[in-house]
């Protein structure tokens, strides 16, 4: 049995780059999310998704439909990150994402 406290990172792939998200910021993983486009939106805002009845911003380059979206939270700030694959939990992050900085908002 694995100690959940030791698995504090979720490895995802965005394009050809693997990055890790801290477990404390994770809320959910959405497969093939339905994305609603936002007129005149610019990166990192790629559109809007619905999670548990709430409208959440989707962050990404918007170049292609995301294979999955990882819902992140930092305090009251909630957003989803568009990813191409979810690899799983790891203990040793190579390229961790600074979620508070990411969720400052576009």
């Amino acid at each position, binding site marked *: *049995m694995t*100690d959940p406290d030791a*698995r504090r990172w979720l490895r995802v792939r965005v394009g050809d780059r693997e990055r890790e998200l801290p*477990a404390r910021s994770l*809320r959910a*993983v959405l*497969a093939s999310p339905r994305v609603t486009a936002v007129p005149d939106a610019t990166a990192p805002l790629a559109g809007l998704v619905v999670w548990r009845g709430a409208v959440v911003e989707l962050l990404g380059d918007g170049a292609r439909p995301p294979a*999955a979206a990882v819902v992140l939270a930092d305090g009251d700030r909630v957003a989803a990150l568009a990813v191409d694959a979810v690899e*799983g939990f790891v203990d040793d992050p190579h390229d961790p994402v600074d979620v508070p900085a990411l969720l400052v908002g576009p």
Partner: protein
Amino acid sequence: MRPSKVRAGVRRWVIDRWASPAGDGLLDALRAVARGDLTVDPRPERVGPSGAEALSTLVKRVGALVLAARASRSLHDAAPAALAAASARVGEAAARERVSLERAVDDLAWAAGRARELHAVAEGVVDCSERSALVSLNAEIEGLRAGGEAARGMSLLGDELRRLNQRGAAGATSLAEGLTELSAALDAARVKVESAREALRALSDEAARAAAAAEGARRAERALGEALEGWSLVDDETAARARELTAAAERLAGEAAALRARLGAVDGAAKEELARALAALREAAGEG
């Protein structure tokens, strides 16, 4: 006998001997040959010297032709029947195999279609595994957020679900790939069997054409046999007799030529005797 009377008698003998009977005899002989009778008598006294030679040659050549045709018929009369029987057997075998191949084509088409259906099912299993993996991932996230014993329980459950999903997804993926290969192989086999079926169809058609040709050959053989039945046999004995008759005709022709020479000599002697008689008369008249 006076020389002029001798000469006229010889001429009449020659005409009676060679001209009129020879024409009728040759005509009768030709009519017999036309009826298929090659045993005609070609002697010169019946058909004349020239007619004897021509008739002998005609009988000889027609006889050789009839004998050759009979020999060819006895040699080949069994071939059309054998060819027809062989063609029939080939056609029947081809028809049986074609039916079997048509069933095989249907079976292969069904199997290929079934493989595609199973491939779709396998892809559905892969999709379910991926969704289950997502559910287990979210369960782990919820456990991490809950913390404490709940987090440990959710982590354990997530680990088990992930392992099961990985095994199921790997198996379903392998199954889908195998079914794709199987479907392609079945389609290729179906194409080959269809090609073989077409080849058998062509073989069956060829066998039918060969049977028709054999039947035509049998009809021709029967017609030849009927035609040959109308001819009298020409054997070696008849041919030898014809050769003897030809030689006799040639001898008679030589004798006729000698007779003509002698007749000319008689004519010359008569002229000399007449000259001597005239000279004697003139001499007697001069003395008187």
